Structure formats: structure tokens, C-alpha cells
């Protein structure tokens, strides 16, 4: 089982689906950011799996996965800073109470 590409890809797909559920369903903004991290990890797993199983790719899969990690770190930094800035004004981390643009 650990020698087939399909197993890793299905695993990555399941992780991505879990992350998308969390992003759509949670109320807390930080929970939504954690779900985005789960989705990015699922994509990263699929990239590394392709790099490990397709000989033409060689080491490119790992290099691209490192780039994705760096961009994910940047995204987490800016996203959490935005959440903290909103929290300072609205005093709540729940996204359904961020309705200033609806009023």
C-alpha cells in the first residue's frame, strides 16, 4: 500500500476535504486559518508524492513543496495579523459577527 501513488493521493484528497469542511463550517476565524493550513498540507503531500513516484520530475517535487511551505508561512503570518487587528476593533473572533460591510 505504501508503494502506490494512488494511496498517497487519496490521503492528500481526504486531508484537503477535511480542511475545506473546516473552512466552510467553523465560526472562529483562527479555526478557519487552521483549516487552510490543513488544505495546504494536503496539496503539499500530493506534490511530494508525485515527485517521489514519477521519475521525470526528479527532485522538482521537493523543491516546489519547499516553496509552498514558505508561501504558507507568509500567508499564516499575514492572516493571523489581520485576525488580531479585527479582534482589536470588534472584540470577537467569530466571523459571523464581522458584518460591518453589510450594514
Amino acid at each position: 500500500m505504501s508503494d502506490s501513488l494512488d494511496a498517497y493521493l487519496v490521503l492528500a484528497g481526504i486531508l484537503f476535504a477535511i480542511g475545506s469542511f473546516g473552512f466552510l463550517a467553523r465560526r472562529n476565524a483562527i479555526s478557519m486559518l487552521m483549516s487552510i493550513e490543513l488544505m495546504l498540507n494536503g496539496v503539499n503531500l500530493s506534490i511530494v508524492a508525485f515527485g517521489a513516484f514519477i521519475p521525470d520530475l526528479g527532485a522538482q517535487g521537493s523543491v516546489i513543496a519547499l516553496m509552498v511551505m514558505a508561501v504558507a508561512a507568509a500567508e499564516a503570518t499575514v492572516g493571523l495579523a489581520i485576525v488580531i487587528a479585527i479582534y482589536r476593533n470588534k472584540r470577537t473572533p467569530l466571523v459571523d459577527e464581522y458584518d460591518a460591510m453589510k450594514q
Partner: protein
Amino acid sequence: MVRRLIPIILGLALLGIVTGIAAVMIVFLGQDWGDALFWIFAATMIGSGLLVVTMRDIIRCGLAMIVCFGALAGIYVILGAPLIAAAQVIVYIGAISVLILFAIMLTQTKDAPSRLVFQTQAVPAAIASVVIAVVIALSIAATDWNEAAERVRVATEAMSQLLFEQFVLPFEIVSVLLLAAVIGGVFLAKREPGGPS
């Protein structure tokens, strides 16, 4: 109190069941260690991932996320990419998890309604994500990837050659992006003089 423990008990039960199945696979069915480790890490990853999106207490969600990332690092090792596994441990477990836990502790309020964890659209979201998982699995099963029969172990030396020769421009751009993100994060989270609290 008992109801709060239900997700944890379910997760531990899932982990125990899959570990038992892996042990049975090794001892009785003669599978090798790679498969058993793959199953254990996969079950840990999916179980703790489900705990991340379903648990009530958000601190525990963050801790379950660390477990999920650790299991994923183990899967990278099985895949033969040890440098990616090391980067996963350093970047995700070391940096991003700590950042998220700090943000959780900065934004937790005691009077926040803790019983409403999900939006009203939770059931359609669950259906949609199950559909996503099924569609991805079906399309993976239906596609011929033209893959090698064996895993190719990624040599760290070849990878670093590639990173610093062919991919040197994206590498530098990523470093500029990280610098911009650091400055932007400091600017956004900075307390304005005279602003609210």
C-alpha cells in the same frame, strides 16, 4: 463534561483500532513495516485532522493540528523525502503552530458563546466536502499516472543543486515575499496610538 470527551475518545479509539489492524497485518498477514507505518501515520493524520475541525475547545484544535502535522512529516519520511520532513517539523510544528497558538491565546474571550462552534451551513459544508473527497478519489482511481513501480528516493544533494541553480529566482522571490509578510504582519497587528485599547 462527558460530552466534551466524546471526540477525544472517538479519536483515540480510531487510532487504537488502526494500530491494531496494522499489528495484525504485520504479524499474521506478513506485510512489511513500511505499509504498517503508512497506515498508522495515515490514520493518525486523518483522525487528528478530523479533531481539528470538530473539537469545541480551540486550544485543543491547535494541539491536534500539531499531531496532524507530525504524522504528515512521518509520511514524508516514508515517501523518501527526509528534507521535506525536516522542513515540515521546523516550519509547521515549530513556527506556524506556535504562531497560531499565540493568536488563539490573544483572541480568546471567556464570554464568547462556546457552544456554537459551527455555522448554520455546517451540514451542507459536510456534504460538500464528502463530495469533494469522493470526486478526488474517483478521479485518482480513474487516471493512469504513468508512475514508476517503486518510489524514487529524492537525494538531498540533487535537490539542493536544483534549488540553487534552476530554481534560484523563485528562491529569491520567496525570500522577498517572506520579508514583505513579516513587515506586513507587524504593520497590521501594530497597536495604533490613540486607537481602541
